[in-house]
């Protein structure tokens, strides 16, 4: 590990950023040394992504200076930053669906041979990188149709092949399971040993102890605290982030009632992503679904709620077969899906938060099909308040931080009075404070007698919230565990069976 006596490779001094009259960074100072991993932590909207985007030339700071390897540094565009040896994995997935994995990994810097692109070399190099990350897909495959987790791995491969001197990873593990995360950490260790400086942004605080050499905490656009070691109790970090003492993360969940609300019988996907899945969920029960990346959990819950077609099987609600063929039908029956990908499935990014919330709640804001903007705004304001979204109803969705977007997605769906709520990765990219708020909401739903299904790649989360846990492996139902039997080991055993 590098010592602090060496000059930093990157320094930020008094960096500020404003949008219009609104200042969101109030003068950030930051030093990164070669060969160290600095964890940048903070609540949603604290300004972490903004800092990393400024470093990488994606957006320009309003004022302040940067120094890169001793020289003044002000990248006018991403290309300049890349050429200087800076690499960034963006928080949001940004892959090109119709290009191959290899082309995505090397986008904009495709290896050349005289007169053309050296496709073979490119695919070999990409393949090697994929293997290191444990992604067993041909590099010549198109990105179109890859699962979110696999896309995230490709994105990571992209950053790792940059040969950067400084790498910024903005929530690289948000969509990853435990095994993938561990493989990423191995890569990070390797880079650190090679003297690469790394800024690591994550809301999974347990990871921090494993990777970080130093911790920087931000709150509301200010740097509030620095820890000179990664080995800081999670509780301390959290309190520094939120500026107050935190209670317990997971609340106590009520006992489910005996009546069955949802029954899934022998469901098979039309695409073969999962086969013959059956389970029941009772009133007031929180039903977790765990599994490795690509196990078919997302496909399953999409099929249950009519978003994807099925080949056979049925879905019953309160004893009546409903088997929805479209999301509209599912919603009409009182079953809602909070989708996994907020950018592609959850929000119309170019529209305001209020409109977005309105779209899923026409029956509340527009009785008899007659819309009043006032109703939409009021309704949205209430939902925003309830979920503690940082932002206003009139703001466009793409002006919000990733975590706040996720809260809006939840607000959009839970404003209903549903009988069944399906949450696919509900806390992806959400800070600890908001996370426990979401758990509170799940409890609230359960107490009202709603059947809740939670799909999550975060083992601790599934274990913390569920009454029962179904484990999926390669599209099969590997087993259902009761709360009392479930732990890391029993779940992993089933997931890899």
């Amino acid at each position, binding site marked *: 590990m590098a010592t602090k006596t060496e000059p930093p490779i990157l320094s930020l001094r008094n960096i500020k950023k404003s949008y219009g009259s609104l200042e969101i960074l109030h003068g950030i100072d930051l030093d990164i040394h070669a060969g160290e991993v600095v964890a940048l932590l903070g609540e949603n909207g604290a300004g972490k992504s903004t800092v990393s985007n400024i470093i990488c030339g994606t957006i320009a700071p309003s004022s302040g200076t940067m120094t890169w390897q001793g020289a003044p540094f002000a990248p006018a565009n991403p290309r300049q930053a890349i050429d200087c040896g800076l690499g960034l994995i963006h928080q949001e997935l940004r892959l090109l669906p119709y290009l191959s994995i290899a082309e995505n990994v090397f986008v904009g810097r495709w290896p050349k041979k005289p007169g053309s692109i050296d496709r073979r070399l490119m695919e070999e190099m990409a393949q090697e990188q994929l293997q290191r990350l444990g992604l067993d897909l041909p590099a010549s495959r198109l990105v179109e149709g890859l699962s979110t987790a696999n896309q995230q791995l490709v994105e990571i491969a992209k950053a790792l092949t940059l040969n950067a001197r400084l790498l910024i990873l903005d929530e690289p593990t948000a969509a990853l399971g435990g095994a993938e995360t561990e493989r990423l950490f191995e890569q990070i260790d390797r880079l650190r040993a090679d003297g690469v400086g790394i800024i690591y942004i994550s809301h999974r605080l347990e990871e921090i102890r494993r990777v970080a050499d130093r911790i920087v905490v931000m709150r509301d656009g200010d740097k509030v605290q620095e820890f000179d070691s990664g080995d800081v109790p999670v509780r301390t970090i959290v309190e520094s982030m939120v500026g107050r003492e935190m209670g317990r993360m997971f609340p106590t969940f009520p006992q489910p009632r005996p009546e069955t609300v949802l029954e899934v019988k022998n469901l098979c996907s039309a695409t073969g992503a999962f086969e013959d899945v059956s389970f029941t969920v009772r009133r007031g029960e929180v039903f977790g679904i765990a599994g490795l990346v690509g196990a078919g959990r997302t496909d399953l819950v999409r099929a249950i709620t009519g*978003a994807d077609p099925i080949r056979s099987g049925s879905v019953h609600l309160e004893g009546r077969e409903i088997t929805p063929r479209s999301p*509209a039908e599912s919603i009409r029956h009182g079953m809602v899906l909070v989708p996994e990908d907020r950018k592609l499935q959850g929000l119309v*990014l170019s529209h305001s938060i209020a409109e977005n919330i309105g779209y899923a709640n*026409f029956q509340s804001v*527009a009785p008899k*099909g007659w819309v009043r903007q006032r109703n939409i*705004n009021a309704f949205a*304001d209430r939902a925003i308040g309830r979920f503690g979204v940082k932002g206003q109803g*009139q703001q466009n969705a793409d002006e919000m931080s990733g975590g706040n977007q996720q809260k809006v997605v939840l607000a959009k769906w839970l404003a209903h009075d549903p009988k069944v709520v399906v949450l696919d990765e509900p806390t992806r990219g959400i800070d600890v404070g908001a996370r426990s708020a979401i758990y509170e909401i799940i409890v609230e739903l359960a107490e009202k007698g709603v059947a809740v299904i939670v799909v999550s790649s975060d083992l601790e989360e599934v274990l913390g919230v569920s009454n029962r846990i179904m484990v999926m492996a390669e599209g099969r139902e590997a087993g259902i565990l009761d709360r009392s039997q479930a732990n890391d080991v029993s779940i992993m055993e089933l997931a890899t069976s």
Partner: protein
Amino acid sequence: MTAIAKNGPMKASVASLFSLRGATGPLVGLLLLSAFLSFATDSFFTSRNLLNVLDQITVLGIMAVGMTFVILIGGIDLAVGSVLALAMMVMGYMSNVVGIALPLAMVLALVVAAFAGVITGLLITNFGVPAFISTLAMMSVARGLANMITDGQQIVGFPSWFNLMAIVRHGGFLTVTVGLMFAVFIAGWIFLRNTTGGRSLYAIGGNPEVARLAGINVKLMTIGVYTMSALLSGLAGIVLAARLDSVQPSSGFTYELDTIAAVVIGGTSLSGGTGGIAGTVIGVLIIGVLRNGLNLLGVSPFTQQVVIGVVIAMAVAAEALKKR
């Protein structure tokens, strides 16, 4: 209103009252253009000429409302001009050759037009043919059918009340056809602003997958939108027939470009999800005033083409630059 006023100064709230967002640039352009023409010609700023302009934009105006819906959901409709011709010919043939009553013939014409829209809609939603291609195909088919009805001949000899609908100015200013156009504008405006159907179009245009998962029946709405566009094209065909007191299969040739241009100049984005009727009305007026004004100025036809191109680019560039 309060919630909107929070958002910005008074100007913004007035603009959003009329859903003018994205069209204030073109509005300024329209006003400048009108001011210029009022000074440059004696005849532009006379009530008679302004009424003429209204007459002249009826067909474009009615079609542009349907096109606004289509473009809002991120689609495009190239068939409007041909469907207009088809509806005209069906009406003319039914009334003057087959001999049924003209009002009934109009209804039939609208039914045929709407049917064409249903077909394009189904091609798009159920057969996955991109809107550009399916409406291009319908453009060709409808034009061919319109021609086949009379082997390319025009039909004349309608009852005199028909033509009078486009001529008699009730209350000194409002012909039936212009009144119809206003009615279509207002209905379209209310639909987009105040109904769940209209709001759904914005959601679909913003991101169809998000809309679908939010429980909006995207397929049905899409078919509905193309049907409505075709229906309004049919209505525009009837209006044009009244104006010309005759029908011919060559009518409406290249109208699709004018119509799309009017909508886009009015600030509705071709990628869908933003825009509205108020902007479209401005777009239609810009095109109408521009043509009228250039004729009043006696600009030669070739120079007109150049000027029209430059003004259109400027009107849209002004809006885009303002946004920065």
